[in-house]
């Protein structure tokens, strides 16, 4: 369970998050949407402490990760993240991308890490690319490898920061399909996305952020059919 209490994040005088509170149950799939600059990505990046919250609490499974004594690396091990621009390690092969952190951080043997990596690559349909370097892959393939890389650490929570925004349109589906199958495994997922159809289909709840506030938190059917705020209505009118 993730419990967020009055989360603030500012860069100097620029307040990006202005007090977000919510609770996310294990296995829930949350689609986070909103206009650009609304703080969606910052909110997501606070969950694995890539951004340090200015104030407020984030409690994951009973542990307040915003406390000073928190071991950042231990938190991040169990929170996977997928980035808009993939950020695969270009000097490592696909398989090495998947085995690096499990061997380095979880101290798996090479054989164990490769076994796990191989299974994950099969899961995302890219086992035959295991010895390629990332530069030889298409955008969609890179993102599927990036998802597999995050899963290789066996996280409890997966964060997706606009995972399909940098992809050519014809590659969006293959990535969404992988994510869709992941929702069926009971993984807790937070997805910042502009894919409204996907959000509507797979999310348990939709968060609508605007100006650093979480102004709507509703089931997708409800949110897309009948948003309760004018701001969300305006936004949906523009994107749908």
């Amino acid at each position, binding site marked *: 369970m993730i419990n967020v209490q009055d989360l603030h994040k500012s860069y100097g005088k620029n307040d990006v998050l202005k007090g977000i509170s919510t609770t996310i149950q294990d296995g829930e799939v949350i689609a986070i949407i909103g206009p650009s600059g609304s703080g969606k990505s910052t909110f997501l990046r606070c969950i*694995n402490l*890539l951004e340090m919250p200015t104030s407020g609490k984030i409690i994951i499974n009973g542990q307040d990760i915003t406390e000073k004594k928190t071991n*950042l*690396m*231990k*938190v*991040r*091990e*169990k*929170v*996977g*993240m997928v*980035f808009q*621009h993939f*950020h*695969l*390690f*270009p*000097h*490592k092969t696909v398989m090495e991308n998947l085995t*690096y*952190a499990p061997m*380095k*951080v979880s101290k798996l043997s090479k054989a164990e890490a490769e076994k796990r990596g191989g299974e994950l690559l099969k899961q995302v349909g890219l086992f035959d690319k295991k010895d390629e*370097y*990332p*530069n030889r892959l298409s955008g969609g393939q890179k993102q599927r490898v990036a998802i597999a*890389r*995050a899963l290789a*650490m066996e996280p409890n929570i997966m964060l997706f920061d606009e995972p399909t925004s940098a992809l050519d349109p014809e590659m969006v589906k293959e990535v969404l399909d992988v994510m869709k199958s992941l929702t069926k495994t009971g993984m807790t997922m937070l997805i910042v996305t502009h894919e409204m159809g996907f959000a509507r289909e797979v999310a348990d709840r939709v968060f609508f952020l605007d100006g650093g506030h979480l102004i709507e938190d509703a089931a997708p059917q409800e949110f897309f059919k009948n948003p309760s705020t004018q701001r969300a209505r305006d936004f949906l009118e523009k994107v749908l």
Partner: protein
Amino acid sequence: MNLDFTPIIPSIPYILKGIVVTLEIAAIACVLGFILGVLLSLVKLSGIKPLKWLADFYTSVFRGTPLVLQLIIIYMGIPQMFPNVDIQPMPAAILAFSLNSAAYISEIIRGGIMAVDKGQSEAAQALGVSYASMMKDIILPQALKNIIPALMNEFISLTKESAIVTVIGALDVMRRAYIVGGATFHYIEPLLIAGVIYYIIVLILSYAGKLVEKRMRVSD
């Protein structure tokens, strides 16, 4: 044209022996300079202010004064300041070149590290990888790949510029060419030979650099 190489032909092997000295200074200084340069660049990029200032100051001093001056100060200054220390030309030369090239290399590496996409460190952090492992396994390999040409340049110029160790009497190619000139009263011919030797060394190093670069590009 008044050039006569015949009187110095017997001395050519003597000059050639200087190659070992030249390469020894350049190679050791390059390795030590690289190690010190990596440490300096990491210090400069770390958040630790006093250390960062120290590293910046170090760099500005060694880049802001002539190498030949640094060399002479190390060679003559150390015995004067510490009378029980007796420093030979070779160690003095290696020390001066190491300290000097570390300053330049640290700036090259700092630039290389900063040029690596910020997403790389975020991706590593998001996987729970420690700072030290991230630097060693993810950031530095990518940074080094990008700066290989600049590092090779530094090594080549180090090799050439090592000729100034002549002023403290280390028996490198240059010094030996002088000595042969003095002994045979043919000054220009040995220097021309020294020039050819330096040029060939640099050509070989440039070629080796291209090979290394090519090997580092397999992932592209």
